């Protein structure tokens, strides 16, 4: 039991930190522009595919640097020539634009790389078990994922709170007009933050591609979960996004590893159920089965009872 909890905890942290890399960019972009970028997970997918292509030529490590940079540049272009253009039609149009972009990027990825899963692997140098605990291996690559995510989180925090650029970004988020009047180029700041957010998503894709698989559906799989995190944590709150990422990551891994069903719960109270009734699916419902819907349940509950999210200050 202890072994199960230990490994679930570690895996949950890996997933949570990975989700945070996506959520941090998304929540920064949201607090700046007020737009939830539906295409955010698509940039994550682009990162994985670009890194795969780069890795077939020059190996994993250059891809780790190059792919996020390319994705970041693409993101900046999207902001400059797409989102800024659509901005004049209002908020709903911006949301729909990012939604359409997500659809388009998935099609483009299928056009360029095809529909099948790509054989994108972790570098050989990281293909060894870091430690063995109760006879179960913990791969070094997962430790590497934790390390990269934590490094990014700390770097982001330091840049935002300790540097001049971070101060300007914070100012541009809360008082864009005043910041512009002080002589800062606010649209450029917006473009930069959008680009960096996309680059972070791309980086997440690069390191998640080998672990979770590189296939055209990878954006959809993670995309809506990232929204859940951003909303549950509180729109625009980085700290909230961090906590929510860990909660969702842990919740999903624990739900998968703990195999309990409603029948077990009912038998505690000496209630037996009819195996043939129309509600039979309800009685045999088990935790691993409901694991995929838990995040959405959490989202709906949070939105009903605390629309600002865990740490958010404003509603929409």
């Amino acid at each position, binding site marked *: 039991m202890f072994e199960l909890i230990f490994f679930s905890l570690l895996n949950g942290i890996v997933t949570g930190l990975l989700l945070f890399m996506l959520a941090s960019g998304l929540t920064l972009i949201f607090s700046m522009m007020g737009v939830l970028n539906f295409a955010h997970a698509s940039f994550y997918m682009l990162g994985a595919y670009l890194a795969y292509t780069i890795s077939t030529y020059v190996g994993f490590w250059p891809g780790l640097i190059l792919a996020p940079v390319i994705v970041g540049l693409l993101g900046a272009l999207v902001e400059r020539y797409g989102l800024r253009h659509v901005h004049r039609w209002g908020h709903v149009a911006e949301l*729909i*634009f990012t939604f359409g972009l997500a659809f388009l990027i998935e*099609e483009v990825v299928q056009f360029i790389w095809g529909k099948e899963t790509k054989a994108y692997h972790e570098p050989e140098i990281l293909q060894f078990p870091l430690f063995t605990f109760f006879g179960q291996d913990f791969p070094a690559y997962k430790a590497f994922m934790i390390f990269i995510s934590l490094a990014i989180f700390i770097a982001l925090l330091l840049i935002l709170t300790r540097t001049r650029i971070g101060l300007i970004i914070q100012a541009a988020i809360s008082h864009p007009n005043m910041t512009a009047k002080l002589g800062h180029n606010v649209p450029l700041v917006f473009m930069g933050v959008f680009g960096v957010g996309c680059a972070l998503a791309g980086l997440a894709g690069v390191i998640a591609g080998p672990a979770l698989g590189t296939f055209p559906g990878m954006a959809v799989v993670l995309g809506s979960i990232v929204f859940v995190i951003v909303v549950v944590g509180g729109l625009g709150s980085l700290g909230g996004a961090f906590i929510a990422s860990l909660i969702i990551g842990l919740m999903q891994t624990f739900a998968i590893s703990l195999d309990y069903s409603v029948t077990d719960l009912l038998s505690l109270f000496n209630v037996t159920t009819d195996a043939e009734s129309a509600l039979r699916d309800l009685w045999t419902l088990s935790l691993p089965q409901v694991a995929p819907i838990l995040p959405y349940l959490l989202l709906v509950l949070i939105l009903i009872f605390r629309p600002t999210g865990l740490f958010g200050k404003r509603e929409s």
Partner: protein
Amino acid sequence: MSEITNTHTGALPSSLMKRFGPWIFLAIGLIILPFIFSSNISVYTMNLMGIFIIFALSYNMLLGQGGMLSFGHAVYFGLGGFMSVHFMNYVEAEIVTLPVFVLPIFGGVIGLVFALIIGSFSTRRSGTVFAMISLGIGELIASCSLIFVAFFGGEEGVTGDRTMGPVVMGVDFAQDIEVYYLIAVWAFITIALMYLFSRTPMGRMANAVRDNDERSEFIGYSQRHVRLISFCASGFFAGIAGGLFAINFEIVTEENLNALTSGVVLLMAYIGGVGFFIGPIVGAVVFTLLQTLLSNYTEIWQLYVGVLFVLTVMYVPQGLTGILAMHGPAFKMRRLSGLFVPYLRMGIPTFAMLAGISGFLEIIHHVRSAAVGETSMSLLGIEFNSHDVMPWVIVLTLAAIGGLISRTQLPQMREAWEIANAPLDSNEGASS
């Protein structure tokens, strides 16, 4: 309303014609369409069109008329489909005796019930919070549908047989054409109901809440109630569309209520134009045509649809109907003919450019995805070797020359547009 009070006996026929003309036209159109397009594939396409028209119109009750952006509208469509297909099976098992053509009403009812439940908490706010709740609910129900196998049938879905119901007036729905008329009748009724809904005080309040929710609260309407009523009506009609889908295809799966279908309906409504009542109808027709016709010719049709969607959002947020409506003033001033030649001069090179670009994409796609060793491909019936240099040169020059020429034609078209839309001055007004 003033139309009614002001009509005298002499003006009655023309005013009646103005009010009912489009509806009579629609009814006649629906009746004679299968005589013009009688092949199996076109009846299939028209059936799908009718279903999507109802679905897209119900979506526009939210987005266009109520200002609520939903990413989970397929939930009500899918649930309506599942409910109807279950009732179809009850009819077959003779648990209930019902003619098949009333089944969509059960789809509508379950859509209404779920819209009432979900709307009771999701319509408190519009904007991002509403959009997020709708997305969450959509994912929730889609995931649930794979868990609750008894109702949703798991990954295979639920199948039924529409011909097993009692035969009414010799119609047993074995033929697609019979289903077409069933869908046509339902489409006519629901289009009329949705149009009438948009003209009621309730429909007007939905517009008011969309435009400014605070002000509508000041004049005494609860924004939440107004949104909830729109939301329920929308869920009801989406459920009916789902029920018709179940009758037409005799199968409903998880795919009918997942995020993809929710995205498709948003796409249809937006491409058609959310600001107009007939916008979603245009969108549904265009999308279904693209889906059925384009997919015959190319494997990458979804890429084209995606590009079309993004371009629409960026450059013509009023949608296709908006483009048509832009020509209204020129039409009233009888200057539309002056635009014909400039459009032709602009259109032909643009068409050449698009043909070149899509030819380029098709050749790339063929080179990348065709089986090894297979080098011959056909575009528009022309066979050629995709590994030769010549086809590449041809499509690229077509694209480049078309692009360059269409650029040079831009000023003359703009000029013609301005002439056509210039306000009437007194001399011209007197002469025309």
